[in-house]
């Protein structure tokens, strides 16, 4: 057996979390360093795993399986396909950067500083577990456990209205999770008393049962992602969470929703997926437009970025439910790129908010004059977020739209308006915060004169580099994602429509 990458990757951060939590409270610096070193080591593991992954190998790789609850057929089964691998890499990359970016965040909150970083590591462990699990029960366990560290991160270390936001986040997710629990139980009973994902793949359900099971899972994922109309918790949570936790919440945790649809809803319930695809598509499409409109109206930077995310999740959603290879690959690539771009945006917003002491857009204005470098990074993050060509989100958005266009032109056209709206909210946000005449109130704030520190530069550089690199050369990620996406779509039994503009498609295929 090869090296047990996935179980080590899941357990290691939790062990690190315990170590950090046990460090004395009066040594915050030590805790930060240990947490950072630990997460960098986890990143190293993830990189090694990526290298060891064979893009054209079997669908699920690094499979490990240990008995857990024999009476229910539950096993610790870990395995990753290309989609999961990409998400695991994203987590491993974002966590050290977030830890580094949140270096001073916990100090303002009068709470234990080591605990903040320990919670980050616990969160990393549970998020890795969600993506690495290949046993439905195990997946559910991580899906629920994941809420606990995030709940305390928001509730204990967040900004205004943090209690309300934390409870709302927890209850929404728990309600979805419990509906999924009913579906998990049903799946177990109807699927022959097993939780093994690969075995369940071959199970057959009656049409009615399959639709109910699909709905149980889909609702949980739609709340998690979140899709319209289950989205209202996200702006509250994203607005109240400390910037680092918000970056992880939106950048990674919410992807569990779209990942879950790809990994569980589509392959396990293919007929129901086709039956409900118009519903999924409609919810996602409404999200694209509606959330973008709401984003334009926000006056709080963190809430604004949260709304942009809901719009982006709409794009991912229509990519998934289009059932074409291009759209689905685009959606998965979008999940990765959105993690980079929105992660960056949240972290930069966090840096701005830390300086200004406020997240209200009205408190900024002309900030670029004082903070030219940070403003530049902010501008770049905004451009990446609106999917400017040359940045990686452009590729994914384009793939999604092209893939959707081949099957449903109306949806593609409406979604394209989402891009225009995106330009609207990003540009207006930038104009109101960093451009224009300097806000006289900023003059009084000492923090606004503090230029970008080396630590902050180290945080943003890898993200900027990756966004640019993948903007021009997405092949490394696409190569890993494509086989998994094709396998998923063949589970659903969807085939790409015959090309109508043959020439164009042929050249595109040749270009790959």
């Amino acid at each position, binding site marked *: 057996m090869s090296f047990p990458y996935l179980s080590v990757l899941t357990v290691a951060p939790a062990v690190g979390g315990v170590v950090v939590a046990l460090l004395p409270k009066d040594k915050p610096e030590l805790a930060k360093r240990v947490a950072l070193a630990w997460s960098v080591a986890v990143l190293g593991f993830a990189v090694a795993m990526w290298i060891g992954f064979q893009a054209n190998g079997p669908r699920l790789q690094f499979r490990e399986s240990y008995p857990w609850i024999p009476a229910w057929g539950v096993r610790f089964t870990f395995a990753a396909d290309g989609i999961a691998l990409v998400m695991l890499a994203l987590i491993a990359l974002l966590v050290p950067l977030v830890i580094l970016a949140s270096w001073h965040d916990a100090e303002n909150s009068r709470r234990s500083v080591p605990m903040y970083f320990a919670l980050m590591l616990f969160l990393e462990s549970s998020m890795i577990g969600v993506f690495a699990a290949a046993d439905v029960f195990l997946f559910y*366990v991580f899906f629920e456990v994941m809420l606990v560290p995030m709940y305390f991160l928001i509730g204990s270390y967040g900004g205004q209205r943090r209690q309300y936001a934390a409870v709302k986040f927890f209850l929404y997710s728990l309600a979805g999770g419990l509906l999924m629990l009913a579906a998990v139980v049903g799946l177990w009973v109807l699927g022959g008393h097993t939780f093994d994902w690969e075995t369940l793949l071959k199970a057959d359900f009656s049409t009615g049962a399959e639709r109910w099971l699909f709905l149980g899972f889909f609702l949980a994922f739609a709340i998690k992602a979140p899709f319209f109309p289950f989205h209202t918790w996200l702006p509250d949570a994203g607005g109240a969470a400390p910037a680092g936790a918000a970056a992880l919440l939106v950048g990674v945790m919410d992807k569990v929703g779209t990942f879950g649809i790809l990994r569980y809803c589509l392959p396990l319930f293919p007929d129901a997926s086709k039956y409900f695809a118009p519903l999924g598509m409609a919810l996602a499409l409404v999200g694209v437009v509606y959330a973008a409109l709401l984003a334009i109206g926000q006056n709080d930077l963190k809430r604004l970025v949260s709304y942009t995310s809901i719009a982006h999740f709409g794009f991912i959603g229509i990519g998934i439910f289009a059932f074409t290879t291009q759209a689905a690959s685009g959606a998965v690539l979008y999940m990765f790129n959105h993690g980079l771009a929105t992660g960056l945006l949240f972290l930069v917003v966090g840096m701005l908010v830390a300086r200004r002491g406020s997240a209200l857009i009205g408190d900024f204005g002309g900030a670029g004059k004082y903070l030219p470098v940070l403003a530049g990074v902010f501008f770049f993050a905004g451009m990446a977020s609106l999917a400017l060509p040359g940045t990686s989100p452009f590729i994914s958005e384009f793939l999604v739209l092209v893939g959707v266009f081949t099957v449903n032109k109306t949806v593609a056209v409406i979604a394209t308006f989402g891009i225009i709206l995106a330009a609207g909210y990003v540009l207006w946000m930038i104009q109101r915060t960093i451009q224009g005449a300097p806000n006289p109130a900023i003059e009084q704030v000492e923090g606004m004169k503090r230029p970008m520190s080396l630590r902050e530069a180290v945080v943003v550089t890898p993200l900027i580099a990756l966004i640019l690199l993948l903007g021009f050369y997405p092949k490394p990620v696409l190569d890993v994602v494509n086989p998994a996406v094709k396998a998923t779509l063949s589970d659903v039994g969807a085939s790409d429509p015959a090309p109508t503009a043959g020439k164009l498609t042929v050249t595109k295929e040749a270009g790959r």
Partner: protein
Amino acid sequence: MSDSFKLPNIDYAALAPMLILFGVACLGVLVEAAFRRFSRARIQLPLALLGAVAALIVVIATADKRTVTAGGAIAVDGPSLFLQGSILVLGIVALLLIGERTLERGGSFVAQAAVTANTEADRAQAATAEGASEVYPLTMFALGGMMLFSSANDLLTMFVALEVFSLPLYLLCALARRRRLLSQEAAMKYFLLGSFASAFFLFGVAMIYGFAGRVDFRGIDEAIVGSPASPVLLYVGLSMLAIGLLFKAAAVPFHVWTPDVYQGAPTPITALMAACTKVAAFGGLLRVLYVAFGRSQWDFQPVIGTIAVLTMLVGAVLAVTQTDIKRLLAYSSIANAGYLLIGVVALNKDGLSSSLFYLVAYGFTVLAAFGVVTLVRDADGEATHLSRWAGLGRRSPLFAAVFTFILLAFAGIPLTSGFTAKFGVFAAGVESGQTWLVIAGVLSSAILAFPYLRVVVLMWLSEPAESTPSVSIPGALTSAALMIGTLATLALGVAPTLLLPITTKAAEFIR
């Protein structure tokens, strides 16, 4: 066949655990008579613990016994042995809480219950006097009665057992050292409503006798297919029996006593009731429905199913509005009775084994929960109003963390026994086609998460108020009880395999 009266064969080995408990209880009464007040408590607790441990050892040693003895009055089979063992284990932990005397001078029980509440004499005895040591023999009688209740194989034995464990509990409820009026009111309420429930039960027994001509479960089972009597007698009798049993199980609409009694009773007794009475009540319910009335399941399944839904939803919704931690836990215990009813209604082997698992898992968690409640105190005793718990996480992070873990277990978060237990009963429910109950179960769990979460928010995310009470350092006994309860909650959540094979093996009634 001769008409002469023959002594029934009695398998003393099979009855040994109950005999030990009743023997120790009687011994305890003698101790009360023979020793001075000061030394009694020091003798009674070790005696009670010793008796319970000895009985537990016998239960474990005879774990493979399957027999009906005492003239068909008592069935010693898998479920009854498992339930006896659970009652004993949970009872031992509850005894630890009952025996705690370092938190408050003289323990949590009043010295002389007869002293009028709120008089000078009462205040004097509340301040200094040694608590009543009669609680130990009373507890032992109650535990013995519960064990008999879950092993009774005919309705009359069951009724006797019901009274044997109820009467000591009524008394115990009245013995709180503080808030005497509340405690007396709780005992009175419990006694009156409990008497009604017992009367219903007894009336039901008479009806069933009229239907079947017998009161033993095997006879009833045979009569359901063969009796020429009107089935109306059966239905009326069964509903009256069910009222009696569901009262003890605290199912809606027979739940109204629960919050008042849970709030008024001394907290260790509340813990005992929440853990052990629940085991006994559901043990009896399971045996009656599975063994005696299993053949008319199509008649009662929808009714009990409806009661289960009501119990879950009413318990969850009313828990949201509570402002007192003991009342909150009482409503949570009602909702949990609803989840347990899913396992009961499933009426299959999985339903039985998952109910057994649930009873043990919930018992440990609820013992730990009330254990923490005994610790949060101010000058007037326990501070149970929720507003007093604000900011507790700052004052005593360890206990707040333990309580948070327990609340997460109640909410059914994975890696706690609350989740594995719920999963078990839900799976059994779906398996037997009662999916609607499972849907109601998950919805009510979502509602119920809110009150739990509110307590977590209060403890961790609220600023401590001026009047935030301190968390007392628990004595060895409470520490042990807390530790056992919390560790069992964790262990059964992470590795339910520790218990699942045992419940699966035990889940087979004999007639």
